[in-house]
């Protein structure tokens, strides 16, 4: 009987699967790690990683919602981090952050315009962007890091931009919560939200109903770049250092987080909270493998296996609910 009551809930809310997986993993990790995983310091670390990866995942979820994909977000993240740190020692860090986030949005606009105006598949365009901006990050840093000494990272701007903690939780989490609230409101209460999912559901249908498909797609890419840039700023704020490798491979994690969180890669269906929960699950699994001292040669393999098992679990749950 209780299972029958859950079914409609799972059908309505795509993120239920990842929430249940998260709960299960938290219980398993807590029970098997002898306090190494479930402690305040580690949870704080996991939430910091979730904050930056989650911001990136929110943006990727929007793009996925339109039926496109953005695999350049890791490079956007890296470029924004470098711009932020380079500027933060020259101007106020808040202004530096604004410029870095704007640069992220500009990269998103570059991707969006190219995809919308030329009809080139987003995978190809953003693969090109991934390489262009990763190459630029490496060239700008010449193999070295741009950094700000620990003792010089004081003041409110650094504090709020991921440079410190409140009750053991990095301030980056505030930005993730704010982005989630704003985007949820936009998706639910603005025509833009309906248009976004309509474009992902069926471009032809959306077009026939007067939706400006290209404009909608470009806007999704811009927000995606902006959020990846913000993630880069927050990560740079925490580390105080950025090199050409910053954000490398995070694009794959962001896409995995979205899929785990119930976003349909074909478009038309996304879950913002699901994407964030996906980011939390990925960060938690990574952390568990580290604190359990898994050897580096097995780390990626085990991470992949756990992610696949989690994805299968989410999918099975949804199939069961739809039966």
């Amino acid at each position: 009987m209780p299972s029958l009551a859950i079914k409609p809930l799972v059908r309505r809310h795509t993120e239920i699967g990842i929430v249940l997986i998260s709960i299960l993993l938290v219980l398993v990790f807590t029970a098997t790690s002898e306090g190494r995983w479930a402690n305040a310091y580690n949870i704080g670390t996991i939430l910091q990683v979730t904050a930056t990866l989650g911001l990136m995942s929110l943006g990727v979820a929007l793009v996925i919602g339109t039926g496109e994909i953005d695999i350049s977000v890791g490079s956007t993240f890296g470029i924004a981090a470098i711009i932020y740190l380079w500027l933060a020692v020259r101007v106020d860090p808040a202004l530096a952050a604004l410029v870095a986030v704007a640069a992220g949005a500009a990269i998103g606009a570059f991707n969006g315009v190219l995809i919308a105006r030329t009809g080139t598949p987003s995978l190809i365009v953003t693969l090109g962007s991934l390489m262009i901006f990763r190459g630029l990050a490496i060239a700008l840093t010449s193999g070295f890091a741009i950094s700000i000494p620990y003792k010089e990272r004081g003041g409110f701007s650094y504090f709020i931009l991921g440079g410190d903690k409140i009750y053991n939780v990095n301030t980056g989490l505030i930005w993730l919560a704010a982005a989630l609230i704003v985007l949820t409101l936009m998706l639910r209460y603005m025509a833009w939200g309906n248009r976004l999912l309509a474009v992902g559901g069926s471009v032809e249908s959306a077009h026939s109903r007067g939706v400006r498909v290209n404009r909608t797609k470009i806007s999704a890419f811009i927000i995606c770049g902006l959020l990846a840039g913000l993630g880069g700023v927050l990560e740079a704020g925490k580390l105080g250092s950025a090199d050409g490798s910053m954000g490398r491979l995070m694009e794959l994690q962001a896409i995995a987080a979205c899929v785990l969180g119930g976003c349909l890669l074909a478009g038309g269906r996304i879950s913002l909270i699901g994407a964030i929960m996906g980011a939390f699950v990925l960060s938690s699994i990574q952390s568990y493998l580290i604190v359990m001292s898994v050897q580096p040669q097995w780390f990626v393999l085990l991470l992949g296996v756990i992610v696949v098992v989690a994805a299968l679990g989410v999918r099975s749950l949804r199939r069961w609910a739809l039966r």
Partner: protein
Amino acid sequence: MMKTSKFAVAAVIASSLMIGGAAVAQDNEYRFVMVSHIGSNDPNMKWLTLSLDEFESRYPNVTTEYISTNNYSVQEHVRLLEQAISTKPDGIAVPIVSTDAFEGPLRSAVEQGIPVVAFNIPDSRPVGERIPYLTYVGGDEYLTGKKLGEFALAEAEAGNIPAPTGVVCASHDAAHQGLKARCQGMMDAMEGTGAAFEELFISAEPATARSTLQSYLQANPETNYIFTVASWSSPWAWGVANDMGLSPDVDNEGVTVITVDASPVALAGIKRGSVLATNSQGFWLQGYAPMEWLYWYHELGYEPQSDILTGPIIVDASNIDHWEALVRNIFGDAYDEQDTW
């Protein structure tokens, strides 16, 4: 009589306390974590993991853990470090790859009472300003160049190689402070010999490096010592000099090649008589000694008052067989694959 019996009782109590104390010491269990920048895709990892295995076998009450990533970035390294700190180990050994990125987490670890030992890469700032770690265990880049230079001069004095007339320090990274320090050490060693000295950026790309070196040697015919600050560029230097007919083998004429690191390519160069000498920075000790200091810190309260240098150790034709056997044991099949001569 009374006095004697009192003494006997005191002796029994003292000895039982001592035995008890020893038992307590034996029962102390520790977990030390090495958060490294060397992943399993680098054969050098085995220097460290084998040394940790050896440490565990000698100290059964200590568990060591090796944490690293095959997808290295400072961002990932800091993440590993923070998660290692969260497990509240009894000690951490870590290379200070980025002072700015590592200072926050490491200060937090020290504040939590976790002793830290830096290995392989120190915080290069003065002691009062640097991250408050117990000590640094590792090599010294400046001394690497200086000792190799002094060794070459001794060989020249013994008549085994020509005296220096011009020395070029061939570096693949013009801004790398560690490589610059190696060149500086070599330059200081050559001071007073009258030999010209120049630091030359050759790049890490083989074709560019070779043409740059060739142009330099043509323009500076007095150059007879080539110091490559990465071992993989030593075959390039030898090849260019050989093509130019400059007799680069180790003998009393022509050009002499000197390199760094106890890597297969450097050792193979010495073995075939193409490289005069290289150095080891005592990599095995960089895994073992940090664990030992963390152990002694807990058991005895010892705190070293200076950095602990594990190198440079000069490797040349006289001890090449020993070093080849040692490094083959670490690298296994990869040894021959890395011999690019």
